[in-house]
């Protein structure tokens, strides 16, 4: 087996394990390349089907093309698509772009809080109705106990220590010092009432692996990742006030792979364009302990 085939097999195994063990399962889809690969791997695991809902947390500041892309594939692939948001923070303009919060606080409000309450079912979820072709308020308010997330170990220090199956307590807290053992394809799939599990099928993938896999499988990725004539492309997608495109000549997947392998990004951290990581020594770790993905 090739390197990519091995990565794919383990991810598929983890997805199947999650589907078998958790009745109330959801996958987070940020529209970015990693979670889109995750979605593709789900179709691999279930032979073309996606047997659980996908959840997108809309901060209201996503690049508009991301929303178009999301709805296009929700239709094409018959996805059970859910959308959640922090409507009170957005409604009362308590955000970083409004000048009311710093970047970290804004991430916490629009992403962590929105995610937490959407997962628990306390805040309304919008579901894409395939007959109407539009979003309606979902009647199901059951809490999700298993959440599949596309984080990668190479992204950042605290992520390199994650488990494939990572428990969170009632407060969504991650106890880094006391994580469950995982060995021989056996994961923590038993959990006490009130706790839930984050599942990380992409943990062993690097940014380069992701792009090489996208190329191999010909996965339709959002074009924001490519230079479309202005000499700029996004390397990592987020909210437009906090995510800057990088200078690049890569107009297609092959160009990106070249850039990562031998070109200008060979030694530049992927999240270098994300401003919230730089705010304190362990910015992302602080956010992750509190539930950020």
């Amino acid at each position, binding site marked *: 087996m090739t390197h990519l085939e091995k990565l794919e*097999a383990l991810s598929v195994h983890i997805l199947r394990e999650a589907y078998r063990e958790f009745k109330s399962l959801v996958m987070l889809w940020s529209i970015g390349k990693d979670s889109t690969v995750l979605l593709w791997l789900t179709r691999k695991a279930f032979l073309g089907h996606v047997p659980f809902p996908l959840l997108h947390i809309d901060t209201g500041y996503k690049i508009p093309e991301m929303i178009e892309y999301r709805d296009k594939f929700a239709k094409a692939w018959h996805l059970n698509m859910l959308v959640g948001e922090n409507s009170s923070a957005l409604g009362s303009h308590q955000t970083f772009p409004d000048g009311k919060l710093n970047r970290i606080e804004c991430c916490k409000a629009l992403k962590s809080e929105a995610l937490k309450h959407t997962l628990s079912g306390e805040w309304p979820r919008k579901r894409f109705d395939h007959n109407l072709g539009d979003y309606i308020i979902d009647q199901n308010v059951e809490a999700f106990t298993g959440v599949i997330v596309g984080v990668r170990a190479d992204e950042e220090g605290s992520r*390199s220590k994650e488990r494939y199956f990572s428990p969170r307590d009632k407060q969504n807290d991650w106890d880094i010092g006391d994580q469950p053992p995982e060995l021989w394809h*056996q994961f923590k799939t038993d959990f006490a009432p009130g706790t839930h599990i984050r599942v990380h099928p992409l943990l062993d993938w690097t940014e380069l692996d992701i792009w090489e896999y996208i190329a191999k499988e010909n996965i339709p990725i959002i074009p924001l990742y490519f230079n479309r004539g202005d000499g700029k492309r996004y390397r990592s997608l987020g909210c437009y006030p906090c995510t800057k495109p990088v200078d690049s000549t890569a107009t297609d997947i092959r160009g990106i792979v070249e850039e990562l392998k031998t070109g200008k990004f060979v030694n530049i951290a992927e999240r270098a364009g994300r401003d919230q990581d730089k705010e304190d020594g362990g910015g992302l770790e602080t956010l992750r302990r509190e539930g950020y993905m």
Partner: protein
Amino acid sequence: MNVVVVGHVDHGKSTIIGRLLADTHSIPDGKLEQVKATCTRNAKPFEYAFLLDALKDEQAQGITIDTARSFFKTEKRRYIIIDAPGHIEFLKNMITGASRADAAFIVIDAKEGIQENSRRHGYIMSMLGINQVAVIVNKMDLVGYNEQKFNEIAREYSEFLGRLNLRPVSFIPISAINGVNIGARSTDIAWHKGPTVLEQFDAFELKDSRTSLPFRLPVQDIYKFTEAGDDRRIFAGTISSGTAKVGDEIVFLPSGKTSSIKSIESFNTTEKKKASTGEATGFTLTKQVYVKQGELMVKASDPMPLVGARFRANIFWMGKAPLIREKRYTIKLNATRSSLKLVNIINVIDASDLSSEKNKQQVDRHDVAECILETLRPVAFDLVKDIKFTGRFVIIDNYEIAGAGIILEKVADQDSTLHDYVRDREFSWESGTISPAERAAIYGHGAKFVVFTGDETTTKDIIATELEKQLIHSSFKTYYLRMSNVIRGLDSDIKYGPEEREEHIRRLGELARILTDSGQIFITSVTNVDDYDIKTLQLLNSPHEILVVNIGENKFNSLVPDLNLEAGAKAGAAVEAVFSLLRQKKVLLDFQI
């Protein structure tokens, strides 16, 4: 290739990796500066270990708490380096890291020499089945790059590993802090002719002998996405060893059901005729068989795995509470789970010095023990010496993976725990002066436990209700008990889930024992039962007898129900059939009807 770095706390694992990454330019440009800047801000001298010990707690305490993955590549291949913590508190993290490895470096401090965890980690490598091990003797600068000191450590540690049947591929003297023998050689250790750390990475072999082994597929799940208009019934799982092709005859164990491979299913690939070790794949079969997830799918032409409920195993215990005999655990073995009991502890080994203790009554945290374990129902497995991938398991205690083990031998299980228990119970059962025969004579009929099985809950209920009515109207002492009443009453203290199922079955069996002993015809209906559940009920109800009436598709493996009714059977005809069976079994005598 996955390579783990283990060893005693403070012997320099993270520093070695940090240095290796820095020297080979494997660190993203931002990161080194970022960590250095954080050090300056906090007035701490920079250390290479900080690159890996990125978590706040770790930098504060200067130790690695959890395993971290780092990515690194040479001309030859890509590596994931797993940095495992050396502190005893975090042994389960070390095991997590090491279990993913194809090869291992064990780090020993030249000045401190071999320590408790140097040995314990060596033991764990052997148990995890990692047989490519290289030993790094670090901090050679602290012993003046002395060759004799290095040789002493190498000799002593080789001797220790030899007792575990592990032969290290190399011993490498280094100084991580000075970058000696990591990526480049140094005149300080001109006497060392073996590889550097970097050279050793490429010298490890990525052996995969698994494809030549017998075919084993733990059935992870069975998919049928009917609502999405897909009629394929797909047996999904990851092949743990061997190869299978379209057309191969296959057997599922422990059920023993057979079929053959019709197709190999995949998404976004060309049509596949063959699948091999490591692939997460799916099969459809030519003949439909009823098989539960968790069974082991094997090829009929291959050597068969073993099937049994008792085995001898080496286990490593990580649980906060000790492993004891009085408690029920859950075993996860391949894709199956089952209730598990510790039958006997043969030997407890202290992994730090290999001394053993024979008379220990429990297995404590960080102990390694040889013991006899028993699953509630038979499971399929291989011995670790034959096929290690299907011969190892984990034990769950209180939601946590608390133990890991490897199977050494199957043990005869005729005299299982349940048999012992029923024998003891019957031996001391105190009856009144009325014998069962006398009771039957007075009541005018015998006692019986009638169990309805099959998927059709409503049909079962209608038939059972009608049967009770007709038996009572014919003056037979009869009682129909709905399982829902048991769950809300007698069983209200236990949850309703797969893990608690055994306890529900046990209580039902005990209840049946009492009611049949009172001379009644006791009727109930259960769903989703298999051969073992019925055998358990039968055993618990003994010395009285059980009558199994199955409605709809017969999903038993080898058990033959006393009566099979077709799906949607009419109550009148069904009751008539049960009556005639009861007459046949002499529970009801002809003249009484």
